Structures are given as structure tokens and as C-alpha cells.
């Protein structure tokens, strides 16, 4: 059986067609459909694909299914219609499937799905209404939350704002979710940095921080992402030498999409020259712990509680930061820590990313519900993560489905408990 690229289709969807050779490295074997690892000390077997578990059919299941749809489109066997677009958009691009893939399509999976989304935008095919809703707004107000840009730093107390230096070692890239929704995380991060004596500032001026572009990139709105990235690339180095984030999505975008070529990043699309070092707050904290420069005091409200950490996909699977958040969590005194079986590279995604939270809210919250059920069964009493977007989805699901599981960003607890030793 041959699946040659249709010339007519290639003319219609040239960017997707340019990835045809990579797509065809997928053998349709189905390795990607299940987490599996067996060693004498590990006996893991678990569903890995959110969309496959929610929408059932093979098309939705892991990369094999989505690749099959794209193969069908590019070979001219099926049209790129609303249903095909639904399959392609109903995925958080968490890349759990990529963890199991062993063929040469592996590194291209994220790019493939996001390129298919771009083609959907260019041809106006099946864009979820919830994504369309913010797509114009983000161009004007530089955030996907339908908020005003002028209010981006409304959470920041005036005295702190006024005390921020014009330029510092670190520029804290707050991100849209922490700026407009999880202000608790933004405030905690600033408190943490101040307690640690970190030389930091925030790009608060009118021409300062805009959305990093992650929501636009992940959903195929590359022209919008380019504008946002061009702006950030131009302004950030005016504020600092290094960028620090608390948002896993911003982190992935700044460290990979701004800086790396395809398939890992979007430098080829964004066309920017951005080489600033980027770290996540958990990495900084872990480094300080290693150096013996910080420790944490026991907090009475958490004494004896059972904590679990949820790996954000953009921090974990996408960039490979697994150990540092755990180091921070394990440094908190007087608590118990449990590890979910589906953790680190085997994590079950919270369901928020890739445009799913705005495009498919029921599906998105269901994914967090599944995650919280897993944590509850484990005996966890407090859920932690290192991403405001994960925080938001897990917390919403916790409340909506009455789990009574409080959700914290590790930066929030660190800010309360941290003691600087040197």
C-alpha cells in the first residue's frame, strides 16, 4: 500500500505537506497508545492519551490516530474537514504519545499537529469557537484572557512596582495566566524573590511584557505568535540579563520556541534573535538549595499533610525539568510526599494546554478530574505544581467535582516558608 503525497493537496496545504516525509516515518504501530514500562522495580501500564480516553475512536488516540488522519488528508484519501480539524484540535499536545514513540516521526509530532492547526486557520476549517473567541483580542491586548493590556500588572502593589529597578540580573516573565487569573502565583513569586534577595525586575512598562505567544503557537496562530515573540525578543534584554518564569508554558516557549529550530522550536517561523538564558523558578530554587543558601521552615498549616506533585507537560516532557521541582518539594519541612505512578515522563496531562481549555472546556476539566482521582486514591491531601495554567485547571476541577483537594504552586509555599541562610 502506498500513501504518496497528493500534489493537489500539497498545493492547498503546503506547510503541512512540507512535513510529509517526517509524517510517513510513523509506522502506525501503536506503541504510542499506552504508557508501558516494566523492570524488576517498575510495573507501569496505564492509558496515556487524554483525547483517546475521552473521544474513544482511533483517530483521537495518541499520535498514531492523528497521524493517520494527516496521512489521509495528505494522500487525498479524506478531506481536511470539520471532523478532521476536531481530531487535530482536541489534543493538549502534551506529548505523552511521544514518550512511547520509537520511530523517526517522534521529534516531529508536536510540530506536525500544530502545523495542521495552522493550515486549519489558513483555510478556516473547524476552528473551535472557544479559541476563535480570543484570537483577535490577543493581537490587540496581548493576552488571551479578554483583558486589557493596561491591566496586566494591576496585581502588583504600587510600592513594589515603584521599587523595581530599570534593569536587573533577572527579568521575571510573569505570563498571562499569573497576571490576569492566578495572581496569587505572581504575588508569591515576587515575595519569594524579595525574600531571597534576588536582583530582579519585571517588564512592566507599556512596551514591556506581552503574552509569550504560547497559546497562539500551540493553536496554529503563528502570525500572531510572531508579532508577540518579536516584541518580547526586542524588549526583554532591556530589563535584564536572564529571564525567569513561573509558568511552564512561557518557559517552554521562551527557551525552545524562541531559541530552537524545528522540530523542537519555532525559530524558523518566529524569525527572531533571542538568546537570553531562561530558567524556571524551580530551577533557581533547586540551585540555591544545592548550594545550601536557602532552607524552608515548617509551616503549621501544612504539618503532616500528604503532598503530591503534578508535572506540567511544558516543564517536564517538553523541556525535561523533572528533578528540580521535586527537590524543592522534598525540602519543605514537616510534610509527607507521595509520587503518583503516572509521574515525570509518564504524567497524565492536566488537560489545559494546547488550546483545549478554551476550545473544549468539558474535556479539559474531565482530564483534571481523572488526575485528581488518581491523587485522591494515592492519599494525597495537597496537590502542587509549577505552572499557573495547570494550577487553574486542577483547582477548577477540584472545586467543580468536590474533591476538596487544595492546589498550590510550589512557588506559593516556597514564598511562605523560605529562609535565606546566606
Amino acid at each position: 500500500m502506498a500513501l504518496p503525497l497528493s500534489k493537489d493537496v500539497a498545493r492547498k496545504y503546503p506547510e503541512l505537506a512540507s512535513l510529509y516525509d517526517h509524517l510517513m516515518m510513523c509506522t502506525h504501530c501503536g506503541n504510542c497508545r499506552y504508557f508501558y514500562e516494566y523492570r524488576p522495580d517498575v510495573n507501569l501500564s496505564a492509558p496515556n492519551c487524554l483525547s483517546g480516553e475521552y473521544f474513544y475512536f482511533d483517530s483521537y488516540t495518541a499520535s498514531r490516530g492523528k497521524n493517520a488522519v494527516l496521512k489521509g488528508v495528505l494522500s487525498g484519501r479524506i478531506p481536511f474537514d470539520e471532523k478532521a480539524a476536531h481530531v487535530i484540535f482536541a489534543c493538549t499536545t502534551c506529548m505523552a504519545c511521544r514518550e512511547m514513540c520509537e520511530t523517526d516521526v517522534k521529534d516531529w509530532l508536536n510540530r506536525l499537529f500544530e502545523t495542521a492547526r495552522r493550515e486549519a486557520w489558513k483555510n478556516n476549517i473547524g476552528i473551535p469557537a472557544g479559541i476563535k473567541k480570543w484570537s483577535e483580542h490577543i493581537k490587540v491586548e496581548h493576552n488571551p484572557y479578554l483583558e486589557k493590556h493596561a491591566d496586566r500588572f494591576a496585581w502588583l502593589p504600587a510600592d513594589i512596582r515603584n521599587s523595581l529597578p530599570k534593569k536587573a540580573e533577572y527579568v521575571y516573565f510573569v505570563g498571562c495566566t499569573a497576571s490576569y487569573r492566578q495572581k496569587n502565583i505572581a504575588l508569591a513569586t515576587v515575595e519569594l524573590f524579595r525574600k531571597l534577595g534576588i536582583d530582579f525586575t519585571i517588564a512592566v512598562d507599556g512596551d514591556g511584557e506581552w503574552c509569550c505567544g504560547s497559546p497562539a503557537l500551540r493553536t496554529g496562530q503563528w502570525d500572531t505568535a510572531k508579532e508577540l515573540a518579536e516584541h518580547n525578543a526586542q524588549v526583554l534584554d532591556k530589563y535584564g540579563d536572564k529571564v525567569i518564569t513561573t509558568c511552564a508554558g512561557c518557559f517552554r516557549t521562551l527557551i525552545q520556541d524562541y531559541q530552537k529550530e524545528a522540530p523542537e522550536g519555532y525559530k524558523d517561523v518566529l524569525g527572531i534573535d533571542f538568546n537570553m538564558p531562561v530558567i524556571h523558578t524551580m530551577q533557581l530554587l533547586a540551585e540555591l538549595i544545592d548550594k545550601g543558601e536557602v532552607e524552608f521552615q515548617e509551616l503549621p498549616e501544612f504539618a503532616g499533610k500528604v503532598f503530591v506533585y503534578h508535572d506540567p507537560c511544558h516543564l517536564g516532557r517538553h523541556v525535561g525539568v523533572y528533578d528540580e521541582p521535586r527537590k524543592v518539594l522534598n525540602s519543605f519541612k514537616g510534610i509527607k510526599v507521595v509520587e503518583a505512578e503516572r509521574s515525570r515522563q509518564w504524567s497524565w496531562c492536566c488537560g489545559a494546554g494546547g488550546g483545549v481549555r478554551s476550545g473544549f472546556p468539558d474535556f479539559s476539566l474531565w482530564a483534571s478530574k481523572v488526575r485528581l482521582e488518581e491523587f485522591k486514591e494515592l492519599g494525597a491531601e495537597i496537590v502542587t505544581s509549577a505552572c499557573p495554567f495547570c494550577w487553574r485547571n486542577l483547582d477548577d476541577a477540584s472545586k467543580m467535582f468536590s474533591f476538596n483537594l487544595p492546589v498550590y504552586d510550589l512557588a506559593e509555599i516556597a514564598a511562605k516558608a523560605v529562609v535565606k541562610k546566606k
Partner: protein
Amino acid sequence: MPRGVDRVLKTLQEIVGRDYASNEEAILMPYSFDLTWNEPRMPDYVVMPKTVEEVQRVLSFANRERIPVVPYVSSTNIGGLCIPEEGGIVLDLRRMNRIIKIDTETHYAVIEPGVSHAQFSRELKKVGFEFGWGVHPASASVLAMTLQHGIGHLNGRFGVNSQFISSMEVVLPTGEVCKIGSCAYSDEWHSLLPLPMLAGLFIGWLGTTGVVTKLGVWITRIRPYKDVLTIAAEDAESMTKYMVMWRDLELCDEITAVSWWLAQIPIPYPYQEKPPDAPEWFSYTVISGWSEEELEYKRKMWKEVVAKARQKGCKLIDFEYPPEAKRGRTELPSRIVGSTKNYSKSCGGGLAWPGTFTPAKNWPILYEKMKEIYIKHGLSPATRFTDYRGAHYGMWRVMTPFDKRNPEAVWHARQAMREVVEVGVKAGMIPYKPPVDYWNVMNAHADPGWLMLLCKIKDCLDPNHIMNPGKLGIR
């Protein structure tokens, strides 16, 4: 774009629920092809039942309406077995994924079709048991693989996995549900014997006679001591002689040999010459035991066999397995062993085989003939021999990666495999999980009485020929 008829879809949705039946092309596409060169065929509907009753209702309806039905779980086979040759309904059984029973006292388990190898192995390991784990993704269906004579890592000790079947529940194409084996009389699923072997009406039939909705299989205790012993050989004849001598003693769980091309990761595509100083064959045998002493005894006997084989002129060469490969063979099922990276990591997405059960004495002869054919078509002779328990026969197969982007490359792969089957059938080669191409070759050589019986049974069980039509090359 929707396919099929709205009225049919509506009925199917009434049976399984609105969310579990579709006729949209974007949903149907993954069910239209597999890894192989078999021509894609679109189904008209996909249906995902959850219960036996839903399977019954779908089959009754399809039979009444004369709509083809193709049973499906993961389609990880490489024989085009689930490609709907005549369209119709793909019956995706993935939602039926319960492990109903693990009886550690009697040593059997009862599973539904959607139970994956990963799921089954996890639950068995928790209680210290195992099944025959083969070479496939962890998502592959245990039931489908077992029913179609898939092989597992215990084949040297017990034979192929279909020999583990102890009972079954089947929905006939006309919608009736039947139990076969001991479960027909009680809730014990331990044995097909001493009853008439009606299970044979459904084993190896590629889903053309009914839908197996529950399967009882024997399970076996995990032995705590394991080792992998390896030896290479200069030629296929030396390797085969050694394998037969070793399996004669019935001491191993598995004895397998692979040609140089199959030992490469991935298999060279297109064909590359083997370096002149490299052995052409590499083998591993897995031994297990309840104590180190038992293992040591088996090692000693193996060494004696190797020495004797050398005395008899076998050109054997010492070689050690890399640690990762050794781990892959003793920690099964394995991501390493089951992965397609071993076969077609970067060739262009295609993978197929002439996979056969062949008398061991004919392995070397057929290997040499196949090599000529494969090299002529630009393909690597990436061959595997495995001696199964029973007579000295076993797996003779050639894993064949090819480039699906290129119609000419696809043609060469398909043609090479057909030529090999044409040559092999005359020498006792019986393809397993065979695509329609191979059936056509096989049936041209078959005993007419055998074909007549196949047709009679098929007509009797499936009077309207709705079940996976075309797959046996007889209807």
C-alpha cells in the same frame, strides 16, 4: 465527510450510544490501513460496543442487513487482517477491556478483547504470573493475538499462544452467544478438553466466523531465575542444526536465531551487504528455573549441546548479547523488544512479513532462496527462526521494512513476499496471520477437500458472509 447510510448509523448509535458509532471519514481513516502494503479500504462505520449484548445486537442487525463486519482492537498485526475489504462496519472492541478473572489456584485468566498486553502483564505480575509475551506494542490485544496463533516468549516451553486457550465465549455472525469449553458447563474456564474442540471454529479464522468476546487462557508462574545464552553461526544450516539439538532437550523457554540484517537496529533499508567478517546468524535462548542450581544445570547442558554441535561440523561462533538486549529478553513484555524501531524506524513507515510456520529442516533451504528474491528486490533478508515446542517446526519469517511514500518500493516489497510464499508453500511453509495475497497463493496449492470444508464451515456459521469478508481467499 460522512459515508454509509444515515439509517444504519442511527441504528448503530441506538445500540451502542451516540458517542460510540461514527461514519465520518476522519474517524474511519485509521481503520482503513495498517503497517503493511495491503491496499487501504475505508469502512463505512465504526462501532465501539461495551457489552456482549451490544455485540450481539450489532451482529444481528448487520446480518439482517448483510453489512460486512470486521472485528478490531488495535490492528497491530502486520497482515492487513483488519482492513475492511468490502467496507461495512469496523467493530472496535477496545472498550471491552476487563480482566474478568485471574485464577491463581487453577492457573487461568479470563479476559475481554480490549485487554492490552500492558494491562494483562501488569495484573499478572502483581500475583507472580505471566503469559506468552510476543513482539508487539504493549497496546496490542492479548485476545486477538492469541486467537490468531501469535507467538510468545514461552513458545519453546509450551508452543504458540493459541495453545494456551482454555475456554471462550463467542457471538456468532447471526447474533447468538455461545460458550465453548469448560465454561459452557460452569463458571470455570480451565479447559477445552475433554469436549469436542469447537474452539477450532474460531481460532486462526481471522475473525471470519464470529466475535470472541471472552477468552480463557492458561497462565504460568514467573520463574525467579532467568538467563540468556547466546551463540552465533556462520550459516543458516549450522544455526538450525544447533537449534534443533538444543530444543530436543526441552530445557529452554525460547530458542531464536536472527540473521545479521535482523540483528541491526533498524533493519538496513534498502538492502546493504553484510560485512564479510560478521557472522550471518545470531541466536539467543532463554532459560529459567526455580533455583540457581536448576539454571546452572541448564547452562551446563547447553554448553554440552554447543560442543556436540561443533563436533558435528556446525560453524558456531561465541558472542555475547549486549546488556540492553539481554534485559529486553528477560523483562518482558518489553518496550525494547516490542518496538518498531527495531524494524522500520526510519524507512518510510512500511512493515510487513512473510511470517510462517515451517519445518526446521527446511529453514536453511528456504532462507537461501528467499535471500536471492529479497536482494533482487532491494530488501534485506532480515530473518528469524524460532523452534516451537512440539515437532521440530517453528517460526520462519522475514521482517520487511519498506517505504510507503514510494509506490514502486511498495510494489517491490509486496512482490518479494509473494514470491517467497510461492516458493515456500511447496516446502511446508504455512503463513500465519496471512494477508489475502498469501491466501491466494496457499489456496492454489491446497487440498480441495480442505478448501471445501473451510467453505462449508464458513457458510454454516456465517450464511450471509458478513464476517471480515475476503480474508481467507475463499469467499
